[in-house]
């Protein structure tokens, strides 16, 4: 029982740090780099992925035993595309402004390798509950990372965070942060920072064992 709970907690939390889809798996780079010009874009993109990944992982896990393995990829894609189209129509019907801001990147979630990656690596091999936790954790980890990336670029590039002014007139907005190089620079620093923190943590733990 305790093991079960620990396993569940692990599957839910790993997406935020140890198996973060952006910082560790380095998947889904196209939307990661392209839409994160502001924090709100990162949040919307992230939530769309939360819905698509969680829903498709649950369905894929449910039907995993009846799908012949030769046609599993096309079947997964059909399931994923169904949910993506639902999100796209939903945003167009109720959040037109956000739908316009994200443009083609919502339909492109279909080919986002995080989704197919989780379907192939996890949901097709595990039960529904664990697949649900895995999908939720990975997609929320994706969302948090996108908000951070979008937030940094928005603050440095437009002096705002979620549309609110946070930096004064004295700070010259760095247009490059809104351009593709800004995305690569920020992502590079984030990857570096994560590795640095991991190494420091490891050294600390190693030091303790030595005593």
């Amino acid at each position: 029982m305790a093991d079960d709970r620990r396993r569940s907690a692990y599957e839910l939390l790993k997406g935020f740090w140890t198996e973060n889809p952006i910082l560790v798996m380095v998947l889904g780079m196209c939307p990661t780099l392209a839409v994160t010009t502001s924090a709100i874009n990162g949040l919307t993109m992230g939530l769309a992925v939360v819905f698509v990944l969680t829903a498709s992982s649950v369905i894929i896990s449910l039907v995993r035993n009846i799908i012949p393995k030769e046609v599993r990829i096309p079947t997964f894609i059909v399931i994923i595309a169904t949910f993506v189209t639902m999100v796209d129509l939903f945003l167009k019907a109720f959040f037109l402004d956000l739908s316009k801001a994200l443009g083609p990147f919502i339909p492109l979630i279909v080919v986002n390798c995080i989704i197919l990656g989780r379907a192939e690596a996890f949901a097709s091999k595990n039960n529904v509950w664990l697949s649900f936790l895995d999908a939720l954790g990975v997609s929320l980890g994706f969302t948090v990372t996108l908000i951070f990336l979008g937030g940094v670029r928005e603050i440095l590039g437009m002096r705002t965070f979620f549309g609110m002014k946070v930096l004064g007139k004295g700070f010259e907005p760095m247009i490059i942060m809104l351009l593709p190089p800004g995305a690569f620079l920020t992502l590079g620093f984030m990857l570096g920072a994560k590795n640095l923190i991991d190494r420091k943590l490891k050294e600390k733990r190693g030091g303790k064992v030595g005593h």
Partner: protein
Amino acid sequence: MQNRAKMIIILTLFALVSGLVLSVVYLFSNPFIQKNMLAEQKKAIFAVVPNANSYEEKEKNGLKYFECKDSSGNVVGYALPAKGNGYQGEIKLMIGLSPDLKTITGLEVLEQVETPGLGGRISEESFLNQFKGIKDEPQVEYVKNKKPEKPNQIKAITGATISSRSVVAIINKFIKQFKGE
């Protein structure tokens, strides 16, 4: 052989269910999407033609346009939907024109897929407001990194010259065709 049949049946089944689910979602969301589009169109027309109270769809020189009237029935201007290629995809605009067709009374972006934060800023007020009251003769022009000096000029967005240029090019093309030049 049996396996192949199973593959075909399963994949077909999933595609059928998917089609069914999407049809239902589409039927449910389509009225909202249509309503949004009409509301957007109406909002855009009233935004680009000041004092407009009602509008009527008409056609001239192969172009669809909206003739706008005030509350006493006088023609106060025209709203002209226009579209063309931007930096990354199609840009759809609504151009407001004075009754004599010499002045642009306003501009709205209906749809665009330009880079968010850069070309995407063609949808922002600060860019669109520049078009209010400028002359379209001989044609609309843009300047870079300096203040517009002539009555037919606007300032391009820094870092998004191609998107700005596209908007200006679309405006010129459609106004020319509308005037029948």
